[in-house]
């Protein structure tokens, strides 16, 4: 309760601060005058120098936490747009992420996904940071994501930015090997009614009702409700794996354009799902969250954003495990231009979690103490320096974080981008990123009651990465190309150590492994005609993990990195006559290291008919090449599930 009071006090204080700034008359006046008197003498010439791509190219907020043109971004970023998602026939956020070829992604069963970038994948992958509208969807249990409850309505997504490589300087711990940033639409882009529905073999049924309306002249809002029922996966024998499930969800978003320079957003959602298991009762998942965001342009050179969110999740696996998690988070960010050459961004953040686990009667493990409260304080600063303006830019920055496990941690990075005359951009980066401890590293005990054969590491410290990246990005006319190469060195990766070697038990979690990874990611996009676009992506990846002297762990990464050496994706979108569209996505994934998952190729295809602008009808085929195939999990494990071919039809009606 003490923590809740602190958080409540923090909330009210931040709101107070926000109000102080909003009503400060000098600032408000300045912003209004900007709207009425465009300062043409300054900007006309400058704006006209930009190409059409530069003017409208997706302004990417993730990488530098301030608007930046994609073709200038000095990192391995891919952007999935609403149009890509809609035409892909994806039915969940995780499926939509298949469109990013720089992710390693595997469907584990009907609800679980293993998603990572640059290796280190698993169902508890812990080196990727995922944000939905600035809300970190992170479980402090294992620093990963429960993908089954990240069911953002796909119709509401504006875009998804997928960055492979460290993003720790701006985004902090967990952004070791990548960041996924899901950004939903402004309420003003979702006005009117939207009804969607459909069903098929694997997607038994789904439906969404969304309504958006104006509340006064400057506030737009939307509200939605949705639900789905998904079929079970199959055991290798073909027998039903009984993991079918359903989830109901509702939410809202309000956007207030307080002035041309000031924008506020309030959004929230609630969900409730039941996941069947082949043995034991249904898993219950519920959650709710609310986000308040405020951004203000202070001047041509300066802007300020503040964000506050509260997130509660609850998961109950009967007789095995339960978790209640409350997260409070507040962030403040200011970007400003200093002189002619410095673009400075800095920010402060505070997060507080209260995590309560329940040890079930049949539990084989426990998180002890069952309840913990943790705090994180973060600050970051980054300066983009125009050494040669519009040609050579250097970005230096660091994140400084304080956590309850390891105290202060520093995560600096340096980036150089060099714009070539040929519409190309060459970039290089060196970063230090950390995966700070989570509860699984410190608080895990097995079995649930003493004597324990495995205990969390009381001295477990952060896993460290030093990453070196070199990339090239080219965009001109109908061609876009990106190449990113990387070499990373890891220190203190998680290991399981014998307490009294050579006795096999007891075991304790330690930092006994080092490792390295290297590889390259290539993507190319080409508009064959104005109605036919193809996108190809290829990733080559190697991960080596080894025990340090003194370590008794001999897993060599078997439990930490389950990824293919290479993968290839090809997508095609074509508009056909008669208001028809055809989208196809082919993927070829090499065998998964440390698992007996053979290489496979699969194909998704979607035929869409849009007889009027109000109505879309689509027929979607997923995983069409095989009756069932495995993407993840051990060959012999009783938990292994195969993913089956699926076909469904869908209707979307807007009015």
């Amino acid at each position, binding site marked *: 309760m003490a923590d809740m009071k602190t958080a409540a006090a*923090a909330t009210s204080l931040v709101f107070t601060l926000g109000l102080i700034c909003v009503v400060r008359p000098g600032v408000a006046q300045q912003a209004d005058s900007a709207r009425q008197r465009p300062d043409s003498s300054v900007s006309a010439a400058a704006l006209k120098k930009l190409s059409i791509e530069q003017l409208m190219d997706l302004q990417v907020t993730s990488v530098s936490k301030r608007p930046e043109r994609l073709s200038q971004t000095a990192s391995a970023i891919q952007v999935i747009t609403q149009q890509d998602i809609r035409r892909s026939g994806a039915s969940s956020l995780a499926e939509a992420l298949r469109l990013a070829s720089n992710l390693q992604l595997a469907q584990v069963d009907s609800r679980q996904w293993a998603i990572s970038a640059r290796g280190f994948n698993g169902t508890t992958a812990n080196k990727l940071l995922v944000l939905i509208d600035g809300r970190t969807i992170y479980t402090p249990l294992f620093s990963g994501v429960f993908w089954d409850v990240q069911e953002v309505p796909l119709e509401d997504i504006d875009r998804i930015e997928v960055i492979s490589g460290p993003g720790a300087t701006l985004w902090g711990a967990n952004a070791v090997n990548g960041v996924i940033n899901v950004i939903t639409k402004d309420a003003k882009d979702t006005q009117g009614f939207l009804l969607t529905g459909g069903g098929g073999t694997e997607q038994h049924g789904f439906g969404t009702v969304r309504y958006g309306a104006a509340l006064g002249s400057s506030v737009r809002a939307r509200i939605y409700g949705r639900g789905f029922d998904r079929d079970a996966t199959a055991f290798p024998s073909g027998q039903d794996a009984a993991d079918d499930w359903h989830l109901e969800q509702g939410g809202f978003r309000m956007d207030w354009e307080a002035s041309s320079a000031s924008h506020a957003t309030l959004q929230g959602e609630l969900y409730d799902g039941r996941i069947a298991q082949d043995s034991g009762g249904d898993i219950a998942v519920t959650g709710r969250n609310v986000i308040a965001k405020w951004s203000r342009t202070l001047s041509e050179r300066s802007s300020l954003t503040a964000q506050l969110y509260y997130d509660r999740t609850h998961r109950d696996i009967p007789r095995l495990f339960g978790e209640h998690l409350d997260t409070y988070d507040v962030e403040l960010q200011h970007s400003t231009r200093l002189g002619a050459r410095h673009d400075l961004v800095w920010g402060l953040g505070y997060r507080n979690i209260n995590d309560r686990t329940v040890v079930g009667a049949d539990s084989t493990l426990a998180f002890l103490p069952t309840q913990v409260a943790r705090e994180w304080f973060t600050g970051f600063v980054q300066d983009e320096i125009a050494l040669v303006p519009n040609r050579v830019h250097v970005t230096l920055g660091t994140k400084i974080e304080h956590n309850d496990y390891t105290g202060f941690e520093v995560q600096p990075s340096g980036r150089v981008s060099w714009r070539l005359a040929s519409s190309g951009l060459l970039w290089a980066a060196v970063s230090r990123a950390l995966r700070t401890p989570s509860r699984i590293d410190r608080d895990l005990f097995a079995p649930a009651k003493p004597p324990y054969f495995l205990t969390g590491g009381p001295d477990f410290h952060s896993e460290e990465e030093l990453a070196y990246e070199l990339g090239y990005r080219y965009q001109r006319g109908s061609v876009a190309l990106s190449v990113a190469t990387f070499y990373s060195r890891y220190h203190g990766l998680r290991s399981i150590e014998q307490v009294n070697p050579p006795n096999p038990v007891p075991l304790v979690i330690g930092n006994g492994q080092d490792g390295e990874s290297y590889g390259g990611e290539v993507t190319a996009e080409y508009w064959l005609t104005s109605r036919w676009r193809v996108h190809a992506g290829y990733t080559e990846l190697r991960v080596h993990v080894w025990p340090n002297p003194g370590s008794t762990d001999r897993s060599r990464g078997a439990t930490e990195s389950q990824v293919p050496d290479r993968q290839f994706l090809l997508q095609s979108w074509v508009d056909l006559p008669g208001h028809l569209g055809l989208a196809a996505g082919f993927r070829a994934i090499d065998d998964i290291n440390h698992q007996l998952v053979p290489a496979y190729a699969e194909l998704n295809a979607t035929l869409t008919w849009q007889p009027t602008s109000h109505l879309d009808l689509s027929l979607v085929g997923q995983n069409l090449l095989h009756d069932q195939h495995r993407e993840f999990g051990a060959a012999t494990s009783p938990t292994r599930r195969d993913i089956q071919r699926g076909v469904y039809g869908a209707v979307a009606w807007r009015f």
Partner: protein
Amino acid sequence: MAFLKITAAVLLVCAPRLGAQAAKASEAQVKAVFLFNFAQFVDWPAESVPDSQAPLVIGILGEDPFGDFLDATVRGERRGARPFAVHRYQRVDDVTRCDILFIGQSAGDAPEEIIARLKNRPILTVSDADRFAQRGGMIRFVTDRSRIRLQINPAAAEAAHLTISSKLLRVAEVITPTGR
């Protein structure tokens, strides 16, 4: 709580100083530059160009959100040998010779109505009205806070005998033909 006090102090110190700086390039400024740029990415049928020196007219129907910025943007510019001109219209019936028409929010009639009246005239229609491209318009500005994206309905342009370059389509969201 010490952390929050620091935050508070920083906020209070920063805000007044920042407010004293210059004005920001507004949404309207950027849109004006877009309108100017569209001229480079669209081909008009030869019969719609009176002569090679005729001004390329950017029209604004209804309320003008650009102030004098659009005029400043096109001042001294040419497309080939053609200079630019900016005309303002109150009603759709006032639209005389025009190559690019920005339809303001307060243009009165619904976009469908305006487009119907312009039917078959080789005019590139642009607006930021909701679902403009789906409603038969050619290009819609979609503003997402500081970001402006384009939705383009190539079929509507084709119907007016305009050719939109694939370079422009490449960076826009292509809206498939609307129902009739």
